[in-house]
């Protein structure tokens, strides 16, 4: 008798590769949720939309520089510029959102900032819908950088870099993974070694205490928002390059998944977010590969609910001990 799902190592490797790339995106988004939650105990529902705006900024730079078919720049500086613009733009947007929407509510009841976050998310999403319309915008990463795009000759981004047992690893997939790892390393070092990182940890531990020690808490919170939004912006451009299209609604589902990753890993914990991102990406890839695409999202949500019920504080989260 044959098993219904004969183990096919090529498919498995392909799904693993997909899962790791997807997981890298989720990890970057999850880091933003986790950092903001760690410092403000706020679920920043608007984070997914900051990511979406990052993707649109990348698209804006791309089309501003001649569009994907005839870019004015060589591929490497073009992509670098897209990343920089998206990261900076998203970062500033994150700071503005914090300053404008969340800061007035810092001492309000818990419900108020949550509702505000929903409002900001809705506002951003529909603003983009108003400005850009509902159609998909394409990065055209298939032909991006190709010498003859009009012949639909694939560009270098999807060139195979190396093979594992017959499975091609494309340049873009490798790039997403490397950029994510680099960003994670920088972030970890930043939080562990710099003065601002120290101040962040202190503020997350005890905001009032940090204030009394002379830490400018407002500035620390603003820089937390800046960093988390920078990561989201980078993830947005990566999504555009990886899947070639961006649209106003992309932030919702990606935000939800990134959020799942943050929660599964233990919200408030930075290594937890990275682990959670990988886990969610792999779960989604395997579930859609082996069970069919429609099961991907549902399996991710199911895993989240299971993890939360068994370990309410996530895999790497610390148990909250409340003082009465």
């Amino acid at each position, binding site marked *: 008798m044959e098993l219904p799902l004969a183990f096919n190592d090529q498919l498995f490797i392909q799904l693993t590769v997909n899962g790791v790339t997807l997981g890298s995106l989720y990890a970057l988004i999850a880091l933003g949720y986790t950092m903001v939650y760690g410092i403000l105990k706020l679920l920043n529902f608007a984070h997914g939309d900051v990511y979406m705006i990052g993707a649109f900024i990348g698209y804006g730079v791309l089309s501003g520089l001649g569009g994907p078919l005839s870019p004015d720049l060589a591929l490497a500086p073009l992509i670098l510029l897209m990343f920089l613009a998206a990261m900076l733009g998203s970062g500033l947007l994150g700071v503005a959102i914090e300053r404008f929407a969340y800061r007035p509510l810092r001492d309000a*009841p818990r419900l108020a*900032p949550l509702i505000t976050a929903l409002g900001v998310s809705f506002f951003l999403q529909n603003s983009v819908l108003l*400005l850009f319309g509902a159609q998909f915008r394409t990065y055209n990463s298939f032909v991006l950088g190709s010498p003859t795009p009009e012949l639909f000759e694939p560009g270098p981004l999807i060139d195979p870099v190396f093979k594992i047992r017959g499975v091609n690893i494309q340049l873009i997939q490798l790039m997403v993974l490397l950029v994510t790892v680099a960003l994670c390393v920088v972030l970890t070092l930043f939080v562990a070694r710099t003065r601002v990182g120290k101040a962040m940890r202190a503020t997350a531990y005890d905001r009032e205490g940090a204030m009394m020690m002379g830490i400018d808490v407002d500035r620390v919170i603003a820089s937390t928002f800046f960093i988390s939004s920078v990561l989201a912006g980078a993830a947005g451009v990566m999504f555009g390059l990886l899947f070639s299209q961006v649209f106003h609604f992309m932030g919702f589902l990606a935000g939800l998944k990134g959020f799942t990753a943050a929660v599964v890993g233990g919200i408030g914990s930075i290594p937890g977010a990275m682990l959670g991102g990988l886990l969610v990406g792999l779960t989604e890839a395997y579930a859609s590969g082996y069970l069919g695409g*429609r099961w991907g999202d549902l399996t991710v949500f199911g895993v989240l609910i299971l993890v939360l019920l068994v370990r309410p504080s996530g895999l790497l989260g610390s148990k909250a001990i409340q003082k009465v």
Partner: protein
Amino acid sequence: MDAPDQQPRVGVDDWVAQHEDRVDQRTGFAALRRRLGRYVPPPVQLALFTLLAATLPFWMDRGDLFAYGIFTLMYILLGLGLNVVVGYAGLLDLGYVAFFGIGAYSYALLSSDHYGIHWPALATIPLVMVGTALVGLLLGLTSRRLLGDYLAIVTLFFGQAFVVFVNAVNPIVHGQGLTGGPNGVADIDPLRFFGYELTTRRQQYLFLLGAVVVVLTALHFLSESRTGRAWRALREDPLAAGAMSIPVHRLKLMAFAIGSAIAGLAGCIFASVLTAVSPGNFGLPILITIYAIVILGGIGSLTGVVLGAIVINVSFQFLAPENPQSNARVLFYGVLVLLLLLTVRPRWVGAALVAAVLAFGIVTQAIVEALAPSWTGGSIVQGGRLGGVIDDWAVIPSGHGNFGNVAYVALVVAVIVVTRLHGWWQTAALVPTVYLAAIVWETSFVEQPAVARWILFGALLIGLMTVRPQGLLGTPRVEIV
């Protein structure tokens, strides 16, 4: 440090204890509202509301009754259910709309051609309500272990999982997809009691009104009961409530079950009135709408929910794409002027602001007209009553494709700047901002009213939370510091 008149310090125990007395001594609009609430007892309020609402079918045509009457009542019902969970018990349930969906889909499957089952409403509605209450109970079980934000997360995912299940998973049962996928279930029976079918809009409206009145009455008694007080204690401080031997977990489950049952009821009526259900009806936008209703009215207040639903649904329908834009325009400028007049203190400054904005517009329009005529060459969409005046007042360019988008971004920046300014600078900056808002309305919102209403919704939620987190009729929290 003893003050001569023994005034307690703000925030200490005595001050909190005397809070009610101080509120009684207030004057002005707030006090008027308070006395109205005291001298017009809730039964009279309810009777007045019912009487007014019952006259609606006699002077509205079918379409208006559907858009304004039936939808408002539907939102009231949904808001009432959410109010039990969020308002009374303080549990942040972001999966609430899934219960609405479960109710609607259950009704659809039990009374349509989808599986050929045609049960009468008297059997379906109670069954569906019990069913949704049980699902609510199950979801509520997670609240035993998960507190605050984590509960919000799990419920959010529950809501999302429902949409994915209905839309994409759509398991095959008895030879066809259970939920019909993206197309949903169509041709649902109208409500049927003893062989008598509610088919006309008027009958449906009156039935819905009856349901709302029953639920309102039941919830009023519930909120005044021991259980209601226990819920409020739980909402304010679960730990203290537990220490006072209030059965915290049981009350949470109860709130979930009752809220879900009401959502299930709303779902049944929704499915029968629309005669079709599809996954799009149960997504995030509707959840946000229900939250906006409950929050706008004031969390925990029944009158607030009714008021919130009326305000939100009426403005919503005004902004519906099929509605003539001139109606929405009247509403927009009306609200703008009212906001300036009511919120800017002292009052004369508000009035002066309105005048200043008018003058600013006339001058700006004249200058632009003189310098670059093409920038004022555009004409407004669907003039209506206000149209001609506005055409001469607002700068509406023709043939400058991106002007609307630029103006919109400029408006967002301007609003942020205004909130950062203080004193007279702020008042002065308001003038061009309001004018800019009018231009954005005329050049980009009017063309996409469906998008504009969601943007305004988001802005409303943000603004309301910043200015008045307790909502219009809610009471602010008094805390011991």
